[in-house]
Protein backbone atom coordinates (compact mmCIF):
# COMPACT_ATOMS: atom_id res chain seq x y z
CA UNK A 1 0.00 0.00 0.00
CA UNK A 2 1.23 3.45 -0.80
CA UNK A 3 0.40 7.06 -1.40
CA UNK A 4 0.74 8.62 -4.84
CA UNK A 5 1.57 12.22 -5.73
CA UNK A 6 1.32 14.01 -9.04
CA UNK A 7 3.26 17.28 -9.03
CA UNK A 8 2.67 19.62 -11.97
CA UNK A 9 2.81 16.69 -14.39
CA UNK A 10 2.91 17.56 -18.07
CA UNK A 11 2.90 15.38 -21.15
CA UNK A 12 3.61 16.29 -24.75
CA UNK A 13 3.41 14.12 -27.83
CA UNK A 14 5.73 15.91 -30.21
CA UNK A 15 4.69 19.54 -30.08
CA UNK A 16 1.21 18.86 -28.79
CA UNK A 17 0.85 19.18 -25.04
CA UNK A 18 -1.93 16.91 -23.84
CA UNK A 19 -1.49 17.33 -20.07
CA UNK A 20 -0.97 20.89 -18.90
CA UNK A 21 0.34 20.53 -15.37
CA UNK A 22 -1.66 18.13 -13.26
CA UNK A 23 -1.14 17.98 -9.52
CA UNK A 24 -2.92 16.10 -6.74
CA UNK A 25 -2.26 13.56 -4.03
CA UNK A 26 -3.77 10.14 -3.43
CA UNK A 27 -3.76 8.89 0.13
CA UNK A 28 -2.70 5.42 1.20
CA UNK A 29 -5.51 2.94 0.58
CA UNK A 30 -7.69 5.43 -1.27
CA UNK A 31 -9.82 4.52 -4.32
CA UNK A 32 -9.47 7.40 -6.75
CA UNK A 33 -11.28 7.53 -10.08
CA UNK A 34 -10.01 9.66 -12.96
CA UNK A 35 -12.99 10.54 -15.08
CA UNK A 36 -13.49 12.70 -18.13
CA UNK A 37 -14.50 12.57 -21.78
CA UNK A 38 -12.25 10.77 -24.25
CA UNK A 39 -9.12 12.68 -25.05
CA UNK A 40 -9.00 14.45 -21.69
CA UNK A 41 -5.67 12.86 -20.76
CA UNK A 42 -6.85 10.54 -17.99
CA UNK A 43 -5.47 7.36 -19.58
CA UNK A 44 -2.21 9.11 -20.41
CA UNK A 45 -1.87 10.16 -16.78
CA UNK A 46 -2.48 6.59 -15.64
CA UNK A 47 0.01 5.22 -18.13
CA UNK A 48 2.58 7.72 -16.91
CA UNK A 49 2.02 6.48 -13.37
CA UNK A 50 2.42 2.91 -14.67
CA UNK A 51 5.69 3.74 -16.39
CA UNK A 52 4.34 3.08 -19.88
CA UNK A 53 4.64 6.71 -20.97
CA UNK A 54 7.49 9.08 -20.32
CA UNK A 55 6.84 12.08 -18.10
CA UNK A 56 7.55 15.25 -20.10
CA UNK A 57 7.71 17.53 -17.05
CA UNK A 58 6.84 17.45 -13.37
CA UNK A 59 7.10 14.57 -10.95
CA UNK A 60 5.18 11.45 -10.03
CA UNK A 61 5.95 9.93 -6.66
CA UNK A 62 4.86 6.64 -5.12
CA UNK A 63 5.32 6.67 -1.34
CA UNK A 64 7.38 9.87 -1.60
CA UNK A 65 9.81 8.20 -3.96
CA UNK A 66 9.97 9.97 -7.31
CA UNK A 67 9.49 7.32 -10.00
CA UNK A 68 10.01 9.42 -13.14
CA UNK A 69 13.05 7.45 -14.21
CA UNK A 70 11.99 4.13 -12.77
CA UNK A 71 11.11 1.28 -15.13
CA UNK A 72 7.54 -0.02 -15.08
CA UNK A 73 8.64 -3.27 -13.52
CA UNK A 74 10.41 -1.52 -10.65
CA UNK A 75 7.45 0.61 -9.60
CA UNK A 76 5.60 -2.21 -7.85
CA UNK A 77 2.29 -1.46 -9.49
CA UNK A 78 -0.20 -3.77 -11.19
CA UNK A 79 -2.46 -2.77 -14.03
CA UNK A 80 -5.72 -4.10 -15.42
CA UNK A 81 -6.20 -3.22 -19.07
CA UNK A 82 -9.41 -2.53 -20.95
CA UNK A 83 -8.60 -5.37 -23.36
CA UNK A 84 -7.59 -7.61 -20.39
CA UNK A 85 -4.22 -8.27 -22.11
CA UNK A 86 -4.12 -11.89 -20.96
CA UNK A 87 -1.36 -13.98 -22.47
CA UNK A 88 -3.30 -16.17 -24.94
CA UNK A 89 -0.84 -19.06 -24.82
CA UNK A 90 -0.92 -19.42 -21.05
CA UNK A 91 -3.56 -20.96 -18.84
CA UNK A 92 -5.31 -18.90 -16.20
CA UNK A 93 -2.89 -20.29 -13.62
CA UNK A 94 0.14 -19.37 -15.71
CA UNK A 95 -1.25 -15.94 -16.50
CA UNK A 96 -1.76 -15.19 -12.85
CA UNK A 97 1.61 -16.57 -11.79
CA UNK A 98 3.61 -14.99 -14.61
CA UNK A 99 4.90 -11.99 -12.65
CA UNK A 100 6.01 -14.21 -9.77
CA UNK A 101 7.69 -16.58 -12.19
CA UNK A 102 9.63 -13.64 -13.64
CA UNK A 103 10.68 -12.70 -10.13
CA UNK A 104 11.89 -16.28 -9.69
CA UNK A 105 9.60 -16.97 -6.77
CA UNK A 106 9.49 -20.53 -5.46
CA UNK A 107 6.89 -22.71 -7.18
CA UNK A 108 5.20 -23.40 -3.85
CA UNK A 109 4.82 -19.68 -3.21
CA UNK A 110 3.45 -19.09 -6.73
CA UNK A 111 0.92 -21.89 -6.25
CA UNK A 112 -0.17 -20.58 -2.88
CA UNK A 113 -0.63 -16.99 -4.03
CA UNK A 114 -2.41 -17.97 -7.25
CA UNK A 115 -4.72 -20.24 -5.26
CA UNK A 116 -5.43 -17.45 -2.82
CA UNK A 117 -6.24 -14.93 -5.55
CA UNK A 118 -8.33 -17.51 -7.37
CA UNK A 119 -10.36 -18.10 -4.23
CA UNK A 120 -10.98 -14.39 -3.74
CA UNK A 121 -12.18 -14.05 -7.34
CA UNK A 122 -13.99 -17.38 -7.68
CA UNK A 123 -11.61 -18.61 -10.34
CA UNK A 124 -10.75 -21.93 -8.67
CA UNK A 125 -12.53 -23.99 -11.29
CA UNK A 126 -10.98 -22.16 -14.24
CA UNK A 127 -7.27 -22.31 -13.45
CA UNK A 128 -6.49 -24.86 -16.16
CA UNK A 129 -8.36 -23.02 -18.92
CA UNK A 130 -6.98 -20.77 -21.61
CA UNK A 131 -8.22 -17.17 -22.00
CA UNK A 132 -10.03 -18.05 -25.23
CA UNK A 133 -12.16 -20.52 -23.26
CA UNK A 134 -13.41 -17.82 -20.87
CA UNK A 135 -16.27 -15.34 -21.05
CA UNK A 136 -15.63 -11.60 -20.94
CA UNK A 137 -16.39 -11.32 -17.26
CA UNK A 138 -14.16 -14.28 -16.40
CA UNK A 139 -11.31 -12.79 -18.40
CA UNK A 140 -11.74 -9.56 -16.53
CA UNK A 141 -11.50 -11.44 -13.25
CA UNK A 142 -8.34 -13.21 -14.40
CA UNK A 143 -6.83 -9.84 -15.26
CA UNK A 144 -7.68 -8.69 -11.75
CA UNK A 145 -6.31 -11.93 -10.34
CA UNK A 146 -3.03 -11.29 -12.11
CA UNK A 147 -2.90 -7.94 -10.37
CA UNK A 148 -3.83 -9.29 -6.93
CA UNK A 149 -1.21 -12.03 -7.03
CA UNK A 150 1.48 -9.39 -7.21
CA UNK A 151 0.34 -7.75 -3.98
CA UNK A 152 1.42 -4.41 -5.45
CA UNK A 153 1.62 -0.99 -3.84
CA UNK A 154 -0.91 0.46 -6.28
CA UNK A 155 -3.63 -1.03 -8.49
CA UNK A 156 -4.24 0.69 -11.79
CA UNK A 157 -7.41 0.10 -13.79
CA UNK A 158 -7.67 1.46 -17.33
CA UNK A 159 -11.37 1.41 -18.30
CA UNK A 160 -11.60 -2.23 -17.25
CA UNK A 161 -15.34 -2.60 -17.71
CA UNK A 162 -15.79 -0.95 -21.11
CA UNK A 163 -15.81 -4.24 -23.00
CA UNK A 164 -18.52 -5.84 -20.86
CA UNK A 165 -22.25 -5.73 -21.36
CA UNK A 166 -24.32 -3.48 -19.14
CA UNK A 167 -25.47 -6.11 -16.66
CA UNK A 168 -22.03 -7.60 -16.18
CA UNK A 169 -20.57 -4.14 -15.81
CA UNK A 170 -22.77 -3.47 -12.80
CA UNK A 171 -21.82 -6.81 -11.27
CA UNK A 172 -18.08 -6.29 -11.84
CA UNK A 173 -18.33 -2.77 -10.49
CA UNK A 174 -19.55 -4.17 -7.20
CA UNK A 175 -16.87 -6.86 -7.28
CA UNK A 176 -14.06 -4.38 -7.77
CA UNK A 177 -15.40 -2.22 -4.98
CA UNK A 178 -15.71 -5.20 -2.66
CA UNK A 179 -12.19 -6.24 -3.59
CA UNK A 180 -10.88 -2.82 -2.66
CA UNK A 181 -12.68 -2.87 0.65
CA UNK A 182 -11.10 -6.21 1.37
CA UNK A 183 -7.55 -5.55 0.21
CA UNK A 184 -7.43 -1.80 0.93
CA UNK A 185 -4.79 -1.32 -1.76
CA UNK A 186 -4.38 2.18 -3.16
CA UNK A 187 -6.27 2.19 -6.44
CA UNK A 188 -6.34 4.52 -9.41
CA UNK A 189 -9.20 3.78 -11.76
CA UNK A 190 -9.77 5.43 -15.14
CA UNK A 191 -13.18 5.58 -16.75
CA UNK A 192 -15.23 7.83 -18.99
CA UNK A 193 -18.41 6.59 -17.33
CA UNK A 194 -19.40 9.03 -14.61
CA UNK A 195 -21.75 6.50 -13.02
CA UNK A 196 -18.83 4.13 -12.51
CA UNK A 197 -16.92 7.00 -11.00
CA UNK A 198 -19.78 8.00 -8.69
CA UNK A 199 -20.47 4.50 -7.43
CA UNK A 200 -16.91 3.33 -6.87
CA UNK A 201 -14.72 6.25 -5.90
CA UNK A 202 -13.62 7.53 -2.54
CA UNK A 203 -12.62 10.62 -4.47
CA UNK A 204 -13.13 11.59 -8.09
CA UNK A 205 -10.72 13.59 -10.22
CA UNK A 206 -12.64 15.17 -13.11
CA UNK A 207 -10.37 15.89 -16.05
CA UNK A 208 -11.01 17.84 -19.23
CA UNK A 209 -8.66 18.91 -22.00
CA UNK A 210 -5.53 18.00 -20.07
CA UNK A 211 -6.32 19.76 -16.83
CA UNK A 212 -8.00 18.79 -13.57
CA UNK A 213 -11.39 20.48 -13.39
CA UNK A 214 -12.28 19.42 -9.86
CA UNK A 215 -11.35 16.89 -7.20
CA UNK A 216 -13.78 15.74 -4.55
CA UNK A 217 -15.92 12.99 -3.12
CA UNK A 218 -18.74 11.86 -5.40
CA UNK A 219 -21.38 13.75 -3.44
CA UNK A 220 -19.28 16.91 -3.22
CA UNK A 221 -19.01 16.93 -7.00
CA UNK A 222 -22.70 16.26 -7.35
CA UNK A 223 -23.86 18.81 -4.79
CA UNK A 224 -21.36 21.58 -5.43
CA UNK A 225 -19.81 21.28 -8.90
CA UNK A 226 -17.04 23.86 -9.13
CA UNK A 227 -17.67 24.83 -12.70
CA UNK A 228 -19.99 24.36 -15.61
CA UNK A 229 -18.07 21.42 -17.08
CA UNK A 230 -18.24 19.36 -13.89
CA UNK A 231 -21.88 20.34 -13.42
CA UNK A 232 -22.80 18.96 -16.80
CA UNK A 233 -20.51 15.95 -16.69
CA UNK A 234 -21.47 14.55 -13.30
CA UNK A 235 -25.01 13.30 -12.80
CA UNK A 236 -27.38 11.37 -15.01
CA UNK A 237 -29.53 12.64 -16.60
CA UNK A 238 -27.31 15.69 -17.02
CA UNK A 239 -28.04 18.95 -15.23
CA UNK A 240 -30.32 21.42 -17.00
CA UNK A 241 -28.31 24.54 -17.81
CA UNK A 242 -29.38 27.74 -19.51
CA UNK A 243 -28.09 31.29 -19.49
CA UNK A 244 -29.82 34.38 -18.14
CA UNK A 245 -29.34 37.66 -16.27
CA UNK A 246 -29.47 38.38 -12.57
CA UNK A 247 -32.38 40.76 -11.94
CA UNK A 248 -33.68 41.69 -8.50
CA UNK A 249 -32.58 38.57 -6.66
CA UNK A 250 -33.57 36.08 -9.34
CA UNK A 251 -32.34 34.96 -12.74
CA UNK A 252 -34.36 35.97 -15.75
CA UNK A 253 -34.13 33.33 -18.43
CA UNK A 254 -36.36 31.59 -20.96
CA UNK A 255 -39.06 34.18 -20.28
CA UNK A 256 -39.36 33.27 -16.61
CA UNK A 257 -37.84 34.13 -13.23
CA UNK A 258 -35.74 31.45 -11.55
CA UNK A 259 -35.04 31.73 -7.80
CA UNK A 260 -31.54 32.51 -6.51
CA UNK A 261 -30.14 31.95 -3.01
CA UNK A 262 -30.07 35.30 -1.24
CA UNK A 263 -27.23 37.64 -2.14
CA UNK A 264 -25.91 35.67 -5.06
CA UNK A 265 -24.66 37.36 -8.23
CA UNK A 266 -24.42 41.04 -9.17
CA UNK A 267 -27.38 42.89 -10.70
CA UNK A 268 -27.32 42.50 -14.49
CA UNK A 269 -24.62 39.79 -14.44
CA UNK A 270 -24.87 37.13 -17.16
CA UNK A 271 -24.90 33.72 -15.57
CA UNK A 272 -25.45 30.07 -16.45
CA UNK A 273 -28.23 28.72 -14.31
CA UNK A 274 -28.23 25.02 -13.53
CA UNK A 275 -30.79 22.77 -11.90
CA UNK A 276 -30.67 19.00 -11.58
CA UNK A 277 -33.59 17.09 -13.16
CA UNK A 278 -34.37 15.58 -9.74
CA UNK A 279 -34.64 19.06 -8.18
CA UNK A 280 -37.42 20.18 -10.49
CA UNK A 281 -40.95 19.16 -9.55
CA UNK A 282 -44.43 19.68 -10.91
CA UNK A 283 -46.47 22.07 -8.80
CA UNK A 284 -49.53 24.33 -8.90
CA UNK A 285 -47.39 27.46 -9.02
CA UNK A 286 -44.15 28.02 -10.88
CA UNK A 287 -42.56 28.31 -14.30
CA UNK A 288 -44.92 27.39 -17.13
CA UNK A 289 -43.75 24.56 -19.36
CA UNK A 290 -45.13 22.20 -22.01
CA UNK A 291 -44.54 18.47 -21.78
CA UNK A 292 -43.02 17.02 -24.95
CA UNK A 293 -41.99 13.49 -23.98
CA UNK A 294 -42.91 11.19 -21.07
CA UNK A 295 -40.55 8.28 -20.32
CA UNK A 296 -41.74 6.03 -17.50
CA UNK A 297 -39.02 3.70 -16.14
CA UNK A 298 -41.14 2.15 -13.42
CA UNK A 299 -39.86 3.64 -10.19
CA UNK A 300 -39.28 7.03 -11.80
CA UNK A 301 -40.67 9.02 -14.67
CA UNK A 302 -38.51 11.20 -16.87
CA UNK A 303 -40.21 14.15 -18.53
CA UNK A 304 -38.85 16.30 -21.30
CA UNK A 305 -40.52 19.70 -21.06
CA UNK A 306 -40.15 22.87 -23.06
CA UNK A 307 -39.71 26.25 -21.47
CA UNK A 308 -39.36 28.96 -24.09
CA UNK A 309 -37.02 27.48 -26.66
CA UNK A 310 -35.16 25.28 -24.15
CA UNK A 311 -35.77 21.62 -23.40
CA UNK A 312 -35.45 20.70 -19.75
CA UNK A 313 -35.41 17.26 -18.14
CA UNK A 314 -37.49 16.56 -15.06
CA UNK A 315 -37.13 13.33 -13.11
CA UNK A 316 -39.98 12.58 -10.74
CA UNK A 317 -40.46 9.72 -8.36
CA UNK A 318 -43.36 7.43 -9.03
CA UNK A 319 -45.76 7.86 -11.91
CA UNK A 320 -47.65 10.71 -13.46
CA UNK A 321 -50.80 11.30 -15.41
CA UNK A 322 -49.35 14.07 -17.57
CA UNK A 323 -49.22 13.48 -21.31
CA UNK A 324 -47.24 15.02 -24.13
CA UNK A 325 -48.72 18.42 -24.97
CA UNK A 326 -49.97 19.10 -21.44
CA UNK A 327 -49.10 22.41 -19.81
CA UNK A 328 -47.39 22.06 -16.40
CA UNK A 329 -45.83 24.31 -13.77
CA UNK A 330 -42.28 23.70 -12.56
CA UNK A 331 -41.21 24.53 -9.02
CA UNK A 332 -37.76 24.40 -7.42
CA UNK A 333 -35.86 25.42 -4.29
CA UNK A 334 -33.43 28.30 -4.65
CA UNK A 335 -30.96 26.35 -2.52
CA UNK A 336 -30.86 23.57 -5.07
CA UNK A 337 -29.86 25.84 -7.93
CA UNK A 338 -26.31 26.04 -9.27
CA UNK A 339 -25.15 29.36 -10.64
CA UNK A 340 -22.06 29.83 -12.76
CA UNK A 341 -20.42 32.93 -14.12
CA UNK A 342 -21.50 33.41 -17.72
CA UNK A 343 -17.99 34.16 -18.96
CA UNK A 344 -15.67 31.93 -16.94
CA UNK A 345 -18.08 29.09 -16.14
CA UNK A 346 -16.88 29.12 -12.52
CA UNK A 347 -19.34 28.54 -9.71
CA UNK A 348 -20.73 31.55 -7.95
CA UNK A 349 -21.39 31.08 -4.23
Amino acid at each position, binding site marked *: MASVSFRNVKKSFGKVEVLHGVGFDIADGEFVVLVGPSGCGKSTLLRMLA*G*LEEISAGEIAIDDRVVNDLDA*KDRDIAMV*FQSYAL*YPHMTVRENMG*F*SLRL*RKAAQSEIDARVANAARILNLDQLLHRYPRELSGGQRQRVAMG*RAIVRDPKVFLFDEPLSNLDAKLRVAMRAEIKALHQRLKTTTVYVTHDQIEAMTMADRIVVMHDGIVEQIGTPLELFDRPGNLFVAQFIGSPAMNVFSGQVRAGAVEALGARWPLPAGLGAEGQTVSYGIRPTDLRLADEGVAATVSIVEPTGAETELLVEVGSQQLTVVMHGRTAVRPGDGVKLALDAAKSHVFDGASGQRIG
Partner: protein
Amino acid sequence: MRKKQLLDEARLLLVGIPVALWTLIPVYHLVLFAISPRDTATSGRLWPENPTLQNFDTVFNQKHFYLNHFWVQLGNSLAIALAVGAITLFVATCAAFAISRLRVRGGRTVMNLALFTYFIPAAFLAVPMYKTMANYGLLNSRWSLVLAMVTIASPYCIWVLKQASDKLPWELDEAARIDGASPMQLFRLVYLPLMVPSLVAVGTYSLLLAWNEYLYAFLLLSKETDLTLAVALGNFLAADDSPWEVLMATGLVYALPPAAIYYAFKRYMVSGLTAGAVKS
Protein backbone atom coordinates in the same frame (compact mmCIF):
# COMPACT_ATOMS: atom_id res chain seq x y z
CA MET B 1 -30.53 -19.72 -58.46
CA ARG B 2 -29.54 -23.24 -59.29
CA LYS B 3 -28.69 -22.27 -62.83
CA LYS B 4 -26.41 -19.53 -61.60
CA GLN B 5 -24.64 -21.99 -59.33
CA LEU B 6 -24.08 -24.35 -62.24
CA LEU B 7 -22.77 -21.51 -64.34
CA ASP B 8 -20.36 -20.48 -61.61
CA GLU B 9 -19.09 -24.00 -61.24
CA ALA B 10 -18.71 -24.38 -65.00
CA ARG B 11 -16.63 -21.22 -65.08
CA LEU B 12 -14.46 -22.47 -62.24
CA LEU B 13 -13.89 -25.74 -64.06
CA LEU B 14 -13.08 -23.85 -67.23
CA VAL B 15 -10.19 -22.21 -65.40
CA GLY B 16 -9.40 -25.09 -63.07
CA ILE B 17 -8.99 -27.86 -65.63
CA PRO B 18 -6.35 -26.11 -67.78
CA VAL B 19 -4.46 -25.01 -64.67
CA ALA B 20 -4.52 -28.53 -63.29
CA LEU B 21 -3.32 -29.95 -66.61
CA TRP B 22 -0.65 -27.30 -66.90
CA THR B 23 0.65 -28.23 -63.44
CA LEU B 24 0.26 -31.97 -63.68
CA ILE B 25 1.58 -32.75 -67.16
CA PRO B 26 5.24 -32.09 -66.28
CA VAL B 27 4.82 -34.15 -63.12
CA TYR B 28 3.23 -36.90 -65.17
CA HIS B 29 6.20 -36.87 -67.55
CA LEU B 30 8.59 -36.90 -64.62
CA VAL B 31 6.94 -40.02 -63.21
CA LEU B 32 6.60 -41.60 -66.67
CA PHE B 33 10.31 -41.23 -67.41
CA ALA B 34 11.32 -42.31 -63.94
CA ILE B 35 9.56 -45.68 -64.25
CA SER B 36 10.47 -46.39 -67.87
CA PRO B 37 13.37 -48.57 -68.97
CA ARG B 38 16.06 -46.63 -70.80
CA ASP B 39 15.18 -47.81 -74.33
CA THR B 40 11.46 -47.01 -74.13
CA ALA B 41 11.68 -43.78 -72.18
CA THR B 42 11.10 -41.60 -75.23
CA SER B 43 8.76 -43.95 -77.06
CA GLY B 44 5.82 -41.54 -76.74
CA ARG B 45 3.51 -44.05 -75.03
CA LEU B 46 1.13 -42.77 -72.36
CA TRP B 47 2.20 -45.52 -69.96
CA PRO B 48 5.33 -47.69 -70.24
CA GLU B 49 4.85 -51.27 -71.35
CA ASN B 50 7.09 -52.62 -68.63
CA PRO B 51 7.16 -50.15 -65.74
CA THR B 52 10.27 -50.60 -63.64
CA LEU B 53 11.89 -49.35 -60.46
CA GLN B 54 15.29 -50.07 -61.93
CA ASN B 55 16.07 -46.34 -62.26
CA PHE B 56 15.58 -45.81 -58.53
CA ASP B 57 17.95 -48.68 -57.85
CA THR B 58 20.49 -46.88 -60.02
CA VAL B 59 19.96 -43.67 -58.09
CA PHE B 60 19.97 -45.03 -54.56
CA ASN B 61 22.96 -47.28 -55.15
CA GLN B 62 24.87 -44.60 -57.05
CA LYS B 63 25.25 -46.87 -60.07
CA HIS B 64 25.68 -44.12 -62.61
CA PHE B 65 28.60 -41.88 -63.42
CA TYR B 66 26.55 -38.75 -62.70
CA LEU B 67 25.33 -40.16 -59.42
CA ASN B 68 28.63 -41.07 -57.80
CA HIS B 69 27.96 -38.65 -54.93
CA PHE B 70 24.16 -38.83 -54.83
CA TRP B 71 23.86 -39.32 -51.10
CA VAL B 72 26.48 -36.70 -50.28
CA GLN B 73 24.79 -34.21 -52.57
CA LEU B 74 21.36 -34.95 -51.17
CA GLY B 75 22.89 -34.44 -47.72
CA ASN B 76 24.38 -31.12 -48.88
CA SER B 77 21.01 -29.95 -50.12
CA LEU B 78 19.42 -30.94 -46.86
CA ALA B 79 22.12 -29.41 -44.63
CA ILE B 80 22.18 -26.16 -46.59
CA ALA B 81 18.39 -25.88 -46.64
CA LEU B 82 18.15 -26.53 -42.91
CA ALA B 83 20.92 -24.05 -42.15
CA VAL B 84 19.29 -21.39 -44.32
CA GLY B 85 15.93 -22.03 -42.70
CA ALA B 86 17.35 -21.80 -39.19
CA ILE B 87 19.59 -18.77 -39.74
CA THR B 88 16.95 -16.85 -41.69
CA LEU B 89 14.44 -17.58 -38.96
CA PHE B 90 16.82 -16.29 -36.31
CA VAL B 91 17.73 -13.13 -38.24
CA ALA B 92 14.18 -12.36 -39.34
CA THR B 93 12.61 -13.01 -35.93
CA CYS B 94 15.08 -10.80 -34.11
CA ALA B 95 14.71 -8.07 -36.73
CA ALA B 96 10.91 -8.20 -36.72
CA PHE B 97 10.81 -8.12 -32.92
CA ALA B 98 13.15 -5.15 -32.79
CA ILE B 99 11.30 -3.23 -35.51
CA SER B 100 7.75 -4.06 -34.54
CA ARG B 101 7.81 -4.50 -30.76
CA LEU B 102 10.85 -2.63 -29.46
CA ARG B 103 10.27 0.10 -32.05
CA VAL B 104 13.97 0.58 -32.57
CA ARG B 105 14.73 3.95 -34.10
CA GLY B 106 15.37 3.62 -37.83
CA GLY B 107 14.01 0.07 -37.86
CA ARG B 108 11.45 0.81 -40.49
CA THR B 109 14.05 2.39 -42.76
CA VAL B 110 16.26 -0.66 -42.45
CA MET B 111 13.35 -2.91 -43.34
CA ASN B 112 12.42 -0.80 -46.34
CA LEU B 113 16.02 -0.80 -47.55
CA ALA B 114 16.12 -4.56 -47.22
CA LEU B 115 12.88 -4.90 -49.18
CA PHE B 116 14.28 -2.54 -51.79
CA THR B 117 16.85 -5.19 -52.72
CA TYR B 118 13.99 -7.10 -54.35
CA PHE B 119 13.87 -4.46 -57.07
CA ILE B 120 17.13 -5.93 -58.31
CA PRO B 121 16.74 -9.48 -59.68
CA ALA B 122 18.80 -12.02 -57.78
CA ALA B 123 20.55 -12.98 -61.02
CA PHE B 124 22.01 -9.46 -61.27
CA LEU B 125 23.46 -9.84 -57.81
CA ALA B 126 25.00 -13.21 -58.55
CA VAL B 127 28.34 -11.90 -59.76
CA PRO B 128 28.74 -9.28 -57.00
CA MET B 129 27.83 -11.98 -54.52
CA TYR B 130 30.47 -14.25 -56.04
CA LYS B 131 33.01 -11.46 -55.67
CA THR B 132 31.99 -10.82 -52.08
CA MET B 133 32.28 -14.47 -51.17
CA ALA B 134 35.70 -14.55 -52.82
CA ASN B 135 36.74 -11.55 -50.71
CA TYR B 136 35.77 -13.40 -47.58
CA GLY B 137 37.51 -16.52 -48.81
CA LEU B 138 34.28 -18.48 -48.71
CA LEU B 139 34.19 -19.78 -52.28
CA ASN B 140 33.83 -23.52 -52.47
CA SER B 141 32.52 -23.58 -48.96
CA ARG B 142 28.92 -24.57 -48.37
CA TRP B 143 28.72 -21.60 -46.03
CA SER B 144 28.91 -19.24 -49.01
CA LEU B 145 25.65 -20.63 -50.37
CA VAL B 146 24.05 -20.60 -46.92
CA LEU B 147 24.95 -16.94 -46.38
CA ALA B 148 23.88 -15.94 -49.88
CA MET B 149 20.50 -17.63 -49.48
CA VAL B 150 19.98 -16.08 -46.04
CA THR B 151 20.63 -12.70 -47.61
CA ILE B 152 18.07 -13.34 -50.32
CA ALA B 153 15.41 -14.86 -48.07
CA SER B 154 15.67 -12.48 -45.10
CA PRO B 155 14.01 -9.27 -46.35
CA TYR B 156 10.78 -11.01 -47.27
CA CYS B 157 10.80 -13.04 -44.06
CA ILE B 158 11.40 -9.93 -41.96
CA TRP B 159 8.51 -8.23 -43.70
CA VAL B 160 6.12 -11.13 -43.20
CA LEU B 161 7.08 -11.50 -39.54
CA LYS B 162 6.89 -7.76 -38.95
CA GLN B 163 3.36 -7.68 -40.36
CA ALA B 164 2.40 -10.60 -38.14
CA SER B 165 4.05 -8.99 -35.11
CA ASP B 166 2.16 -5.77 -35.67
CA LYS B 167 -1.05 -7.71 -35.21
CA LEU B 168 -0.17 -8.83 -31.68
CA PRO B 169 -1.93 -6.55 -29.21
CA TRP B 170 0.41 -3.92 -27.85
CA GLU B 171 -1.13 -4.31 -24.39
CA LEU B 172 0.48 -7.74 -24.10
CA ASP B 173 3.92 -6.13 -24.16
CA GLU B 174 2.81 -3.53 -21.66
CA ALA B 175 1.28 -6.13 -19.37
CA ALA B 176 4.49 -8.14 -19.54
CA ARG B 177 6.60 -5.07 -18.80
CA ILE B 178 4.48 -4.27 -15.77
CA ASP B 179 4.69 -7.92 -14.73
CA GLY B 180 8.44 -7.41 -14.69
CA ALA B 181 9.61 -8.89 -17.98
CA SER B 182 12.86 -7.69 -19.54
CA PRO B 183 12.90 -7.34 -23.34
CA MET B 184 14.57 -10.75 -23.64
CA GLN B 185 11.95 -12.36 -21.40
CA LEU B 186 9.23 -10.65 -23.38
CA PHE B 187 10.76 -12.07 -26.55
CA ARG B 188 11.15 -15.58 -25.21
CA LEU B 189 8.07 -16.01 -23.05
CA VAL B 190 5.42 -13.94 -24.81
CA TYR B 191 6.49 -13.04 -28.34
CA LEU B 192 7.89 -16.34 -29.64
CA PRO B 193 5.03 -18.58 -28.47
CA LEU B 194 2.49 -16.30 -30.11
CA MET B 195 4.42 -16.13 -33.37
CA VAL B 196 4.74 -19.88 -33.91
CA PRO B 197 2.44 -20.11 -36.97
CA SER B 198 4.26 -17.31 -38.77
CA LEU B 199 7.64 -18.70 -37.74
CA VAL B 200 6.77 -22.09 -39.22
CA ALA B 201 5.63 -20.46 -42.46
CA VAL B 202 8.71 -18.29 -42.79
CA GLY B 203 11.09 -21.10 -41.84
CA THR B 204 9.50 -23.41 -44.41
CA TYR B 205 9.61 -20.70 -47.05
CA SER B 206 13.33 -20.03 -46.63
CA LEU B 207 14.11 -23.74 -46.35
CA LEU B 208 12.35 -24.47 -49.63
CA LEU B 209 13.93 -21.44 -51.28
CA ALA B 210 17.38 -22.79 -50.46
CA TRP B 211 16.41 -26.36 -51.41
CA ASN B 212 15.27 -25.23 -54.85
CA GLU B 213 18.11 -22.80 -55.53
CA TYR B 214 20.15 -23.49 -58.65
CA LEU B 215 21.94 -20.37 -59.87
CA TYR B 216 23.79 -19.43 -56.70
CA ALA B 217 24.61 -23.02 -55.89
CA PHE B 218 26.00 -23.46 -59.38
CA LEU B 219 28.14 -20.33 -59.06
CA LEU B 220 29.41 -20.59 -55.53
CA LEU B 221 30.13 -24.31 -55.27
CA SER B 222 32.33 -26.28 -57.55
CA LYS B 223 33.75 -29.33 -55.78
CA GLU B 224 31.65 -32.35 -56.64
CA THR B 225 31.20 -33.36 -53.01
CA ASP B 226 30.09 -29.83 -52.07
CA LEU B 227 27.40 -29.56 -54.73
CA THR B 228 23.73 -29.58 -53.97
CA LEU B 229 21.53 -32.07 -55.75
CA ALA B 230 19.95 -29.29 -57.83
CA VAL B 231 23.31 -28.52 -59.46
CA ALA B 232 24.15 -32.19 -59.80
CA LEU B 233 20.87 -32.66 -61.67
CA GLY B 234 21.81 -29.84 -64.01
CA ASN B 235 25.11 -31.54 -64.71
CA PHE B 236 23.21 -34.47 -66.25
CA LEU B 237 22.61 -32.24 -69.24
CA ALA B 238 26.31 -31.64 -69.84
CA ALA B 239 26.51 -34.71 -72.07
CA ASP B 240 24.98 -35.06 -75.54
CA ASP B 241 23.31 -38.27 -74.57
CA SER B 242 21.69 -37.50 -71.22
CA PRO B 243 20.30 -40.43 -69.23
CA TRP B 244 16.80 -38.93 -69.02
CA GLU B 245 15.23 -41.78 -67.13
CA VAL B 246 17.82 -41.54 -64.33
CA LEU B 247 17.63 -37.77 -64.30
CA MET B 248 13.87 -37.96 -63.86
CA ALA B 249 14.10 -40.60 -61.15
CA THR B 250 16.58 -38.41 -59.26
CA GLY B 251 14.34 -35.41 -59.87
CA LEU B 252 11.39 -37.27 -58.40
CA VAL B 253 13.38 -38.12 -55.28
CA TYR B 254 14.50 -34.50 -55.07
CA ALA B 255 10.94 -33.22 -55.35
CA LEU B 256 9.54 -35.36 -52.55
CA PRO B 257 10.91 -33.59 -49.44
CA PRO B 258 9.47 -30.17 -50.38
CA ALA B 259 6.13 -31.79 -51.13
CA ALA B 260 6.19 -33.54 -47.77
CA ILE B 261 7.19 -30.38 -45.93
CA TYR B 262 4.56 -28.33 -47.67
CA TYR B 263 1.92 -30.92 -46.93
CA ALA B 264 2.91 -31.10 -43.26
CA PHE B 265 2.91 -27.34 -42.75
CA LYS B 266 0.36 -26.19 -45.30
CA ARG B 267 -1.99 -25.04 -42.56
CA TYR B 268 0.67 -22.57 -41.37
CA MET B 269 1.84 -21.69 -44.88
CA VAL B 270 -1.49 -20.37 -45.98
CA SER B 271 -2.28 -18.45 -42.81
CA GLY B 272 1.31 -17.33 -42.26
CA LEU B 273 2.22 -16.06 -45.70
CA THR B 274 -1.02 -14.17 -46.13
CA ALA B 275 -0.80 -12.71 -42.63
CA GLY B 276 -0.42 -9.01 -43.10
CA ALA B 277 -1.61 -9.17 -46.68
CA VAL B 278 -4.74 -7.33 -45.69
CA LYS B 279 -5.20 -4.88 -42.89
CA SER B 280 -7.81 -6.32 -40.61
